[in-house]
């Protein structure tokens, strides 16, 4: 089933370490193509920690891996900064220069059958001229 | 290249030249006694005034505090945007100009040397990174010591030699020129949000009084044979009734003096010459201050003149800025630096019709007019605290013309006129005296032997102003004075013509100078080796990463002196 949540993006140590291996390194991709979610919400949509989920906002939609996390309140999800999160964010900055990276309305649903794109595939799919 | 400045009306007080028509010869970057005239480029300076390049003793032009001011005051830049030209970089101006614009505007006024008066050592990489970007002028930095833990600890323990060795180490490694003291002891208290009043109250945790800090550093200054006296911004700046503490400060080092040599410079004394007991009863106490200065040769002062305009106050006196923002409700930056200092910034608009501001305006001028000896009072606006340095020509006109002063006096509140003495002062400066308070006297008190004069051997830093004293009387034609001094006809820096008709025609990079006081090897190495541990305990950076390498400066220029230790 589908659940309405609030999306937060931000830094994580894994992402911070992952980027130092290089953007083409698998460790970077793994560190940014995930979504932390409360166990309660994970259960509510009928997904498991480690399975793929689809996240949709008014700006876009992307498949990432769900990771169960006790530190996330129900009704909220967290995705580390990176190319996957960006698909879901809008460019309106309220004339501040700063897009809304935190507090974006989103919907999540299981996507067991779908694959998480590699970064190269992501760039080709979303940014090719 | 050789340059011949012909038939200028020369004011060169250090060489007793008072308006003589003569030639000045330049070879390379120096003034010389003769050149091959046929090969020299000739500047016709007839009917123009020739002086050494201007020297600014006290102007906040770089440093983290200045740059915070820039970031704070974007709206100040919006009204003064400067486009790039063939020769110059772009930037923005008004009260805190960007670095390039700062250099250009000084050069355009005929200034060639400027002292940045307040930098904490921890931020010296930042200071030199920024100083590197100030073109056109020679520059230096004064280092803050008046609230430094290591200094206070040495002084408390009576280790004056060790204290001197530490200060020599800092000046040499961090590339600074002067011992600057701001609100001694009190800024350490302000870092806890506290205030101490008077020079004799002990600083909490350190067991030392402001007076002991001032006296100790004055002794250190002597031991190190530093070229400039201690440069003191004393306690209780900007407080009604503070003239007493100002006199007390000057007097507390009197018995260290010998040979009538200046050994304390009191800066921006306008902010320290207030009578009365609150803002409503504020009055001028310049009679008392000038009287003390006239009678005591160990003291020099600068004006800290204010200008009626929108400007920005910024000082290492963080506790004062806290009080100022409470008073005005303005924006407030405070920035405390570990182990060393504090700083604050508050915008201010000095208004002619404001009673307090008008009294402040009069006090600055009174100081310059009541101190008899022009070699011991210097022109500053404490840029940008009293107003932007670009107003110097206006200040010169006020000093040279009673009529110019009266024009302003007529438009300030009556009560401000009553509480000040300016109306009754007839003195008018002449060009010889102006040359003293804007270059000769300042170069002398800075101990810069090659600056501020035009004798052979001096640096070829020269200003030529389009003002003909035979045609105009500065007392009557004060507007002509403002015009001439705002845009130099020529500015010559290191022997090159860099400004012509008030415009930059050649961008150059000036030197950054600092002082290296040579102390005994043993003392130097014992101090250096004790610092590793002190830094580990006190700082968040290692000694290694604290020091500024010499080649970090675009044009490094050490000045060596021999210490007495």
């Amino acid at each position: 089933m589908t659940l309405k949540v609030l999306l937060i993006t931000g830094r994580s140590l894994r992402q911070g370490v992952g980027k130092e291996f290089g953007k083409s390194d698998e460790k970077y991709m793994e560190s940014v193509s995930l979504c932390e979610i409360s166990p309660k919400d994970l259960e509510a949509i009928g997904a498991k920690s480690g399975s793929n989920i689809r996240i949709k906002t008014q700006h876009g939609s992307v498949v990432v891996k769900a990771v169960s996390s006790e530190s996330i309140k129900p009704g909220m999800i967290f995705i580390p900064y990176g190319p996957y999160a960006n698909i879901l964010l809008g460019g309106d900055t309220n004339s501040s220069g700063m897009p809304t990276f935190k507090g974006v309305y989103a919907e999540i649903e299981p996507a067991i059958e779908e694959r998480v794109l590699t970064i190269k595939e992501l760039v080709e799919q979303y940014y090719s001229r | 290249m050789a340059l011949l400045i012909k038939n200028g009306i020369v004011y060169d007080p250090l060489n007793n030249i008072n308006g003589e028509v003569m030639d000045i010869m330049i070879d390379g970057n120096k003034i010389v006694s003769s050149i091959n005239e046929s090969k020299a480029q000739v500047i016709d300076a007839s009917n123009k005034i020739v002086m050494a390049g201007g020297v600014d003793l006290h102007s906040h032009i770089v440093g983290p505090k200045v740059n915070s001011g820039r970031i704070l005051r974007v709206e100040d830049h919006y009204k003064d945007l400067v486009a790039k030209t063939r020769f110059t970089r772009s930037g923005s101006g008004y009260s805190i100009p960007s670095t390039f614009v700062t250099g250009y505007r000084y050069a355009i006024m005929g200034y060639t040397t400027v002292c940045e008066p307040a930098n904490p050592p921890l931020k010296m990489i930042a200071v030199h990174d920024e100083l590197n970007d100030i073109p056109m002028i020679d520059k230096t930095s004064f280092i803050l010591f008046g609230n430094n833990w290591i200094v206070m600890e040495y002084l408390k323990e009576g280790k004056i030699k060790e204290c001197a060795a530490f200060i020599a180490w800092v000046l040499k490694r961090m590339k600074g020129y002067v011992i600057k003291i701001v609100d001694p002891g009190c800024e350490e208290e302000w870092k806890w949000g506290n205030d101490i009043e008077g020079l004799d109250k002990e600083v909490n945790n350190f067991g030392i009084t402001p007076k002991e800090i001032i006296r100790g550093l004055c002794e250190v200054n002597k031991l190190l044979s530093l070229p400039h006296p201690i440069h003191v911004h004393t306690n209780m700046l900007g407080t009604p009734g503070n003239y007493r503490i100002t006199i007390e400060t000057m007097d507390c080092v009197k018995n260290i003096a010998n040979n009538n040599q200046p050994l304390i410079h009191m800066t921006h004394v306008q902010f320290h010459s207030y009578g009365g007991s609150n803002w409503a009863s504020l009055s001028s106490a310049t009679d008392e201050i000038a009287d003390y200065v006239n009678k005591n040769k160990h003291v020099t002062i600068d004006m800290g003149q204010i200008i009626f305009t929108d400007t920005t106050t910024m000082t290492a006196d963080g506790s004062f800025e806290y009080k100022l923002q409470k008073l005005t409700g303005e924006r407030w930056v405070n920035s405390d630096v570990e182990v060393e200092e504090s700083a604050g910034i508050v915008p201010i608009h000095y208004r002619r019709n404001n009673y307090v501001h008008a009294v402040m305006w009069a006090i600055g001028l009174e100081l310059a007019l009541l101190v008899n000896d022009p070699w011991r009072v210097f022109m500053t606006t404490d840029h940008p605290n009293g107003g932007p340095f670009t107003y110097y020509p206006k200040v010169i006109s006020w000093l040279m013309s009673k009529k110019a002063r009266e024009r302003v006096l007529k438009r300030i509140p009556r009560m401000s006129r009553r509480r000040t003495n300016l109306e009754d002062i007839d003195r008018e400066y002449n060009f010889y005296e102006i040359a003293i308070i804007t270059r000769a006297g300042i170069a002398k008190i800075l101990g810069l032997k090659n600056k501020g004069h035009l004798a052979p051997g001096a640096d070829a830093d020269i200003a030529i102003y389009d003002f003909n004293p035979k045609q105009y009387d500065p007392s009557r034609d004060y507007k002509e004075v403002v015009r001439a001094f705002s845009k130099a006809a020529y500015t010559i820096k290191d022997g090159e013509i860099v400004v012509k008709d008030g415009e930059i025609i050649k961008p150059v990079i000036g030197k950054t100078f600092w002082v290296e006081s040579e102390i005994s090897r043993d003392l130097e190495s014992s101090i250096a080796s004790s610092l590793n541990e002190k830094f580990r305990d006190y700082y968040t950076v290692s000694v290694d990463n604290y020091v500024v390498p010499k080649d970090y400066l675009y044009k490094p220029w050490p000045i060596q002196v021999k210490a007495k230790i």
Partner: protein
Amino acid sequence: MVIYENVLCSVCGCLCDDIEVTVEENKIVKVRNACAMGTTKLLNYYKERNTKPLIKKDGKLIPTNLDEATSKVAEILVNAEYPLIYGWSLCSSEAIKVGIELAEEVGGVIDNQASVCHGPGIQALHNSGLPTCTLGEVKHRADLIIYWGCNPEDAHPRHLTRYTLSPKSKFIKDPKERKLVVIDVRNTITAKKANLFINIEQGADFELISALRAALKFEEIEEERVAGLAVEQIEEFAEMLRSCKFGVIFFGQGLTQSLGKSKNIEAAIALVKDLNDYTKFALIPIRGHYNVAGANEVTAWQTGFPFAVDFSKGYPWYNPGETTAVDILRRGESDAALIVGSDPLAHFPKEAADHLAKNPLAVIDPDISVTALAADVVIPSAFTGIEVSGTAYRMDRVGLLMKKVVDPPEGVLSDEEILRIILKKVRILKGVA
């Protein structure tokens, strides 16, 4: 084998300066004192690295030489009417200076990552000022440390041990005297270490600050709950703030990127100003990249403005929302871009990043970034702080000189050198050399 001591770490805004690096045959073999990010960078930076300039031909990036690559960048910039030059937080101050000169010469906009990081904090500074201090002040004096909307244990792993909770202090003899408060929407690993964790409702920071300011003035709050917290809890917290000896708030992107953005920081500044009537209090932005603060410093002293500077009319102009990278891209106003030491395709919302990929795009970066994959020309540069030295500014604006410990690969130049070549070529193309 050479051991370098007191090396600076070129990862985050902590700019730790106590790293020990062992080098054997121009290779880093051992790293001490650094955090996981710093260690990973120092030991892995050279792996899978591209050292050849690349240029796009027939839709594919193929190797070329530095001369052709720099000429191409110069050409892209000179032909543009509104080029965007973006990045800089992973560059030295020396490189940034050349970048500003280049932006001025080509009449473009130069922006840095503060734009999407602590830009709102800088906008708040314009309106309110900033009572702040260096990290050493916190080390010696702070008995109340607040992390608000930031998670240093993840993003600045040594922040607590080096600067706030554990360092040796002159005045605080027992570390237990220090209280740690975390205000966040997530129960982060930093929050788990706190004496008090305030789990705030997402996007309600401004409301919480308004309530705190009211409570500090002993005003009655006509509400039961604010920001998901009981009013009594807020009043107790206000008392805690008021009664410390020296308090500090470190704020992060939880404040700058949430609803209200710069207004959240304005409110926090106002709160800290209020608190200074009772005790000593400071506010410090917890900056991300190792030299994002330096990008603001250098840009500010050279132009008067800290980021997002538009030189299109010959003089600098600045207004976040108008001249900031994301806004320019979203409105589709730039017609070319040069990205230096940044990866906007990985970090900008797609809606903005899209426009970058549609126009001529050049990248200077030690790594093959996500942005490089979409670029027309890519020039690899040396790693600052590892292969070349340079100045960087810590989050509290202390400038430090980064060391070089190994040589860059042959033919790979510093950002500064590459930019100087491009600047020279731009001037030749413009006929002003």
